[in-house]
């Protein structure tokens, strides 16, 4: 058993319990976005950061992943925490008015009108859908593609995924409702697609002859594949 103090509350927990779990069991609220009981901690949204006192001054740690340590002193809502949370929330709001939780936090922390804007997007890249698809459903039809500010959730080659079983778990678990099954299964390739009427890339020489029918490659489309522009019609 491990003993620690969270917001001046003496708490005893089993070894291996995270600060977040410990707090929840004692009705101490810590905001989270990318956390889900059924999944491994991801520690990406940084809303759940808490102040951990240490020899060399306090520091912030992600409570969803940080294990309770004997004698630890934790503050879940100190000024340090609130300062960082305020910025995080403001940054989250850069891509649009988001889910209730964030809006609630914004008002509570007195976050100003975001001073920085990104193209509107409901996805906050909490990765829940991707992790659920991989770790719960076990098909890994979608993944995080690109990196940095370009990062997004997508299926391979960003066309209909053939691994997707359309179970809807990703949609169910998405906290912002940003994800539609259609995004992953749009134009779900039908086995006969290659013999259907196709629209064409047109020839670069006279612009009139029609080149490769887009769906002549049904087999690949089944593999989440489609003849790509640069492969099919550029000279």
């Amino acid at each position, binding site marked *: 058993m491990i003993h620690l103090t969270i917001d001046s509350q003496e708490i005893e927990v089993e070894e291996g319990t995270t600060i977040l779990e410990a707090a929840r069991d004692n009705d101490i609220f810590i905001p989270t976005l990318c956390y889900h009981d059924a999944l491994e901690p991801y520690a990406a949204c940084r809303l759940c950061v808490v102040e951990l006192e240490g020899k060399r001054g306090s520091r912030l740690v992600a409570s969803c992943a940080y294990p309770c340590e004997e004698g630890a002193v934790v503050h879940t809502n100190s000024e340090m925490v609130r300062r960082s949370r305020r910025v995080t929330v403001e940054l989250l709001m850069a891509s649009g008015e988001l889910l209730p939780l964030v809006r609630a936090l914004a008002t509570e922390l007195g976050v100003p009108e975001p001073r920085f804007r990104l193209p509107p997007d409901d996805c906050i890249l909490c990765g829940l859908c991707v992790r659920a698809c*991989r770790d719960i459903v076990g*098909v*890994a*039809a*979608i*993944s*995080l*593609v*690109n*990196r940095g500010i370009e990062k997004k959730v*997508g*299926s*391979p*080659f960003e066309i209909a*995924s053939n*691994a997707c079983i359309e179970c809807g778990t990703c949609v169910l678990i998405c906290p912002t409702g940003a994800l539609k099954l259609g995004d992953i299964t749009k134009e779900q390739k039908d086995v006969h697609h290659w013999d259907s009427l196709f629209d064409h890339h047109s020839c670069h020489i006279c612009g009139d002859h029609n080149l490769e029918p887009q769906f002549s490659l049904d087999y*690949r489309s089944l*593999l*989440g*594949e489609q003849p*790509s522009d*640069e*492969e099919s019609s*550029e000279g």
Partner: protein
Amino acid sequence: MANFSVKVVDDIVNDHRDGAEGSLISILGEIQERYHYLPRDALILVSQWVGVPLSQVYSIATFYNAFSLKRQGRHLVHVCTGTACHVRGAAQVLDRFQRRLEIRPGETTPDWEFTLETVNCLGACALGPITVIDGEYFGQMAASRVDKLLKEFGMEREKA
């Protein structure tokens, strides 16, 4: 540009058979080296042979700078934008290449001749600013040298 061959990919993967998932990046690296980009078929085959989800292969292919999903031009132009090169004016050199080739970094000229890329540091800072074309180093670059260099690599089109 070498035409994509299934056999080549088969063999590359087969060489890494025991490495399994751990060798994924090495495999993609070899394919990239062979074709200067990662053909879609190749990614699909790799995922199937190695036995990892295509989505994972795809996210790796899009995560690392060394990989490209777009077909590359005949000549690869790498402009070093490392710190040393930057303070010595790499920006102007890059700018000149962009104007001359009329493409941004990561893009390829419509005639599939040149692909322009930036690279973070080649560790040959003494020569900064550096440009590498098809593996050949050109040190102490200057905007004024760009045109000549491009001509050497067979760029005919007149200045835009």
